[in-house]
Structure formats: C-alpha cells, structure tokens
C-alpha cells in the first residue's frame, strides 16, 4: 500500500489528508463531568474513524451521547462537560492537544458543524448573509464585500431561490427548509473537509428532509467532504451513510457498514431499534419496543450496559466490562452473545414476544 501513490490534500492549516488514512479518527474517547464525589461519563470509550469523503452515521436513542461525541470533535462541549481521556485525530493530528486558538483556526475551514434545529442554531439578531460571511471573512481573509458575495454564492449552491434578497433576511423570516439550507451554506462556506451534522433534518418535514438529505449528499460528493451524521432515525442513516455506529448509553455497541448492520444486526439493541421503528415497507409487522429505560449515566453498573433491557441477557452479561469485539472485518459488536442469524432470529423473537417478555 505504501508504495502506491495516493491522493493527497494539503489543507490550509498544513494538515496532510491522505486517502489511506482516516480523515477523522476518534480513539477511546471519554466525555464526562467531574463532580466532587465522582466522574460521570456521558460518553464512554468511543472509537470510530471516518475516511476521506465517507459518510458515517451515528444512531442511538435520545441521551445516548451522540451529540456529545460530535460536540467534542467540534470543541463545543457545554460548560462543565469535558473530554476526560482519549484522542480525536484529524489528519493524524490530535485536536485535543492543540491550543484553543489553533483549534479555532481549524473550525470552519477544516471542520464544520450543522445543528438539529436551524432556528435556534442561527443568531436571531443577525442577517443570514452576514452569518454565512462571518467564517470566510475570518478564515479566508476576505473583505466584507467579497465575503458577502461568497455567502450569496453559497446560498445559491444550496438551492435557495433569490439568494441575494434572502441574504438580508433574518432567520425567523425563513422557512425551516431554507434555514437548514442556510446552515449548510454556512457550514460549507470555507470548504471544510469534515462536516459534523447533528440531526440536521429532525425538525423538517419529510419532503423537505428528503431535499436536504439529497443536497447534503450531493454537496459532499462534489467537494469530497466527509460527513459525520448523527440521527436517531435509522432509515435516514440507511439512506445517507455508508458506515454506521450504534450508540447506547454513551458507548458504541455495534459498528460496521450500513448494508451489513441493518439487515443483520448482531447486537440486541440494534435489533431492538430496528424492530421498534415502523417500517414503511413492512406495514403489517408488529412493533416491538425495547422495554425499560437507558441506565442512569451516573451509575451504569457493571457488565453490559444493555443487559437490564436485553431479552437475551445471560448471567455473564452482568459482570465485568464489555469490550467491542471484531466479528468480521470492519464489523464490531459489544455483545457476549451476538445474534448472528439476523432476521431469522428476529422473527422468532417477535413471535414469542421474547424481546419484550423476559425483562424482570
């Protein structure tokens, strides 16, 4: 491999991105809060990597730590919450070791982020054009006029009709779809290499969601931008991403290629997620929910975190610490008793109500 010539991209800040190395690699990331008495881990030992131009999905229930992981990469953890250990490598450089100002210099031209709710993610008192222009002005050293021009151009590229006029609008004057497009324009204005998306379409209508997803995918393909895509809608991941990590209670419990994981989930939690969501193409299937609730992050207990809700849990699931194990190449599962029969087992579980019934 090393002998082969590979594509190289020299970024503005000198980071060398190569195709044989993941553009973004999260290693053993712990995020949490230090309390007087204890450390509360919100994200626990999360690792995953994203290749150049790849679209990577993170799914999981509310509170599973998806947003925290993303925010840690962007350096936007809420106050009180910090990275406890681990590293976040961008093009081989550990972001966590950079100074605040050099990290800031990366944000925008190298890494950008899009939030769930475009209305709250845009400054309500600033014209959207100015908000888009702010990044280019700072990072690309553009004049106010040029930055503004760039902003309008970006808006045009995201399919906003009449961009010059819309640039003068305030966020509340735009519809949800337009706002999210503004967010995309804003995030892509400095041509970042990695785009972090935190549920960018959850607040949108299906028709608009579809437009925005298509747009995102197209733009990223055009520029070779990698995407980290957080959502709780499996179908959206299935449609958008090539690889996926399934998060539960701050941990990644399963990861692999989307077309491997979803048809043949190995982890009971992944299975549960799939079975509880209505599937348009399987309307007559009974919905089976995962019983109970995710554990309190302050006290996850020992053993597999999912064991208390797991229909297949056995005694050994409840002791010790569970590590991710690679079952097949690029297919990792944190389960002592992984389901490998996939769908066959699923229907069995559904018919005898096993997933639901066995909790005590």
């Amino acid at each position, binding site marked *: 491999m090393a002998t082969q010539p590979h594509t190289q991209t020299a970024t503005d800040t000198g980071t060398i991105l190569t195709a044989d190395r993941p553009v973004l690699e999260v290693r053993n990331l712990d995020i949490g809060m230090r309390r007087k008495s204890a450390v509360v881990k919100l994200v626990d030992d999360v690792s995953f990597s994203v290749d150049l131009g790849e679209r990577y999905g993170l799914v999981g229930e509310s509170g599973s730590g998806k947003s925290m992981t993303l925010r840690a990469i962007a350096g936007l953890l809420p106050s009180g919450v910090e990275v406890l250990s681990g590293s976040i490598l961008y093009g081989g450089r550990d972001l966590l070791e950079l100074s605040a100002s050099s990290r800031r210099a990366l944000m925008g031209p190298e890494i950008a982020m899009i939030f769930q709710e475009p209305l709250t993610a845009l400054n309500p008192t600033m014209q959207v054009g100015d908000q888009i222009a702010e990044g280019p002005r700072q990072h690309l050293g553009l004049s106010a006029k040029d930055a503004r021009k760039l902003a309008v151009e970006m808006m045009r590229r995201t399919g906003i009709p009449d961009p010059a006029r819309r640039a003068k609008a305030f966020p509340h004057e735009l519809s949800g779809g337009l706002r999210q497009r503004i967010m995309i324009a804003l995030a892509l204005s400095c041509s970042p290499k990695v785009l972090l998306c935190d549920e960018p379409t959850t607040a949108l209508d299906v028709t608009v969601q*579809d437009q925005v997803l*298509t747009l995102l995918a197209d733009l990223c393909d055009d520029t070779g931008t990698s995407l980290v895509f957080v959502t*709780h809608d499996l179908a959206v991941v299935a449609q958008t991403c090539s690889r996926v990590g399934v998060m539960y209670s701050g941990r990644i419990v399963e990861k692999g290629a989307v077309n491997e994981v979803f048809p043949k989930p190995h982890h009971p939690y992944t299975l549960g997620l799939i079975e*509880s969501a*209505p599937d348009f193409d399987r*309307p007559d*299937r009974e919905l089976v*929910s995962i019983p109970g609730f995710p554990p309190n992050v302050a006290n996850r207990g020992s053993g597999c975190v999912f064991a208390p809700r797991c229909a297949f849990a056995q005694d050994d699931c409840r002791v010790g610490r569970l590590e991710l194990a690679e079952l097949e190449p690029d297919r990792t599962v944190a389960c002592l008793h992984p389901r490998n029969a996939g769908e066959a087992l699923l229907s069995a579980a559904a018919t005898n109500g096993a997933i639901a019934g066995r909790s005590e």
Partner: protein
Amino acid sequence: MPEEIMLEARDIAVLFNQSKGFARIFGGARRSDSALHALDGVSLSLRRGESLALVGESGSGKSTFANVLVGRLAPAAGQVHFEGEHIGAERSISHRRRIQMVFQDPYSSLNPRMTVRRAIGELLRVHRIVPPSEIDAELVRLVNLVGLDEEVLDAYPGQFSGGQRQRLAIARALAVRPDILVADEPVSALDVSVQATVLNLISELQRELGLSVLFIGHNLSVVRSLCQRVAVMYLGRIVEVADVDEIFDNPKHPYTRALIASIPRMHRTIEREPAIQGDPPSPINLPVGCRFQSRCPLVQDRCRAEDPALRLVSATPTAGGEFEDHLSACHYAEELV
C-alpha cells in the same frame, strides 16, 4: 352495512385574524398575530371505531382542525356534527367529555404541579364517572389500562419520562370515557422504542374500547402501521382521502405521491421517485387555482386557473368486502398511475 359516522366536519374554515376594536387600541393580550387561512373548507368524517389518520406538512392545518373538532376553536365557517347533531364551540359538559384529545408535547400536556391522582381524580368527580367512593379504584384501573403501575398516581409529571407522560395523557383522556380520541402527533416527540409502546397502546385501546381515533401525524410509516384510513392535508385543504393500503399503493394526488417518495427507507434498493422541490407557499397569500401548483411536477395550465375540488375518484374494495371511497383533489387524479 354502512359504517356509522360519529363525527363529521362540514366545510370548516378557520381564519387567524388580527384582533380588532377596543382590545386592539388598548392593548389587551391577543391570541394571534396575522391574518391567514389555516383551514379552508375542510370536510371529513370519522366513523365509529375507526382510526383515521390525518397527515400533512407542518403548518397545513392539522392541529387547527383538531382544535375545531374538540371545540377549542370556533370555526369561521362550517359545522361540526356529533352523531348527527350540530355542536358549536361552546359545548355542553357531556359533549366535551365525549371528544378527548392527546397532545404532541408530553412536557406541556400534564400540569407540572398536580399529581396524577388530583388531575385525573378531578375529572372523575366533575363528570361523576364513578361514585366518589370508587374514585381511587377507578384511578388504579385507568393507569393500569395504559400500562402503568398505581404508584404513579401520587407522583408529579416531572418524575416521568416522555413515554410515561404520554401514557398518562392518554389515561386522562380516557378517564372521562370518551367516544372519540383526537391524538395530535402523540408520538413525534418520543424515542423510537418508546414510540412503539405508545402506538401499540393506542391501537389496542382503539380496538378494545371501540374508540374512534383521529390520529394526526406526519410520519407515514407510523400511519401506515396504525390506521385504517388516511386523509392528506395540504395548506388548509384535504387533498386526498382513502383506505390506508389504497392510498399508499395507489395515490391519486401528486402531493401524496411526493410524500410517499420522500419517506426515508431502510432498504436503499427500493426505488423512489424524485423528491418535490420547494417549500409550501405561505397560507397568507394563497395562489389562484390548485394550492399545490408551485411544487407540482405535473402542473398544467388548468391547475393555475381552477381550484380543484375534493371528489370521488374511485371506490375500492376493502378487506371486509365493503367498498371504500377514494377521494382526491387533483384535476388529473385519474391520470396518475
């Protein structure tokens, strides 16, 4: 045997206006800001024991319609009939009782300062559902009905998760023994796994208690697995009504087709039509002609001139051997394949 119509809305129109007169000059608190047509001639009937879905984009008027049905909002025009009897917005206590509602936001739908016992117990007392001595037993029965343990009775809503709250909201609605349950996006704020329990609960209750349910939602996957009939709403109008399988297999309105096309699918292999473009136009300045014209891939000149009415396009046989009407508001419904 024709199914019995429980609740019928006829030509409902709702306008949100600026308030006028004295209150405006002297600045009393007002309910709305700008004039817009939230509903424009909506007719829909709910049959006994059925579960009817109302879907549509955000802002299309679904909640407004629900509010009219439950009597929270007086329509500018049109009437609501309950078992054939006209009921206005100011309703008798028994009419109120018989149509209950479950809301989208589980966090604002329960009074944060009242225990479940108090909140539901009050309803039982006011409506004299059971003799006072049996109230406690009835409360236990109700929370059990929605799959909760009786210890929830003395807790405050703050102590519950979203799914539990939604169950409690359902329990409250059922406490007064309604005939009709209007559920306004009851699961869209919930996590998938919780969503499933609530959806299952609603469908069980509907079956077991013979409730008529108007289920408002925008997730077509949910609708498809829960409801028997579907009405599609666009910009204050019903644009298509049909049996659930019929509408998804054989949509007769371009908007419905676009909706279906936009659903994210687990299986990428499934072929999808191209998504429609643009956002819905503002309900303040409505276009002449068909409301969907600006986004319709099949738009014709007639669509820009003539407002299509909701009409019968076909009657399809249902599982029970009956024929179900398929209504659409598209000039070219028959031409859609």
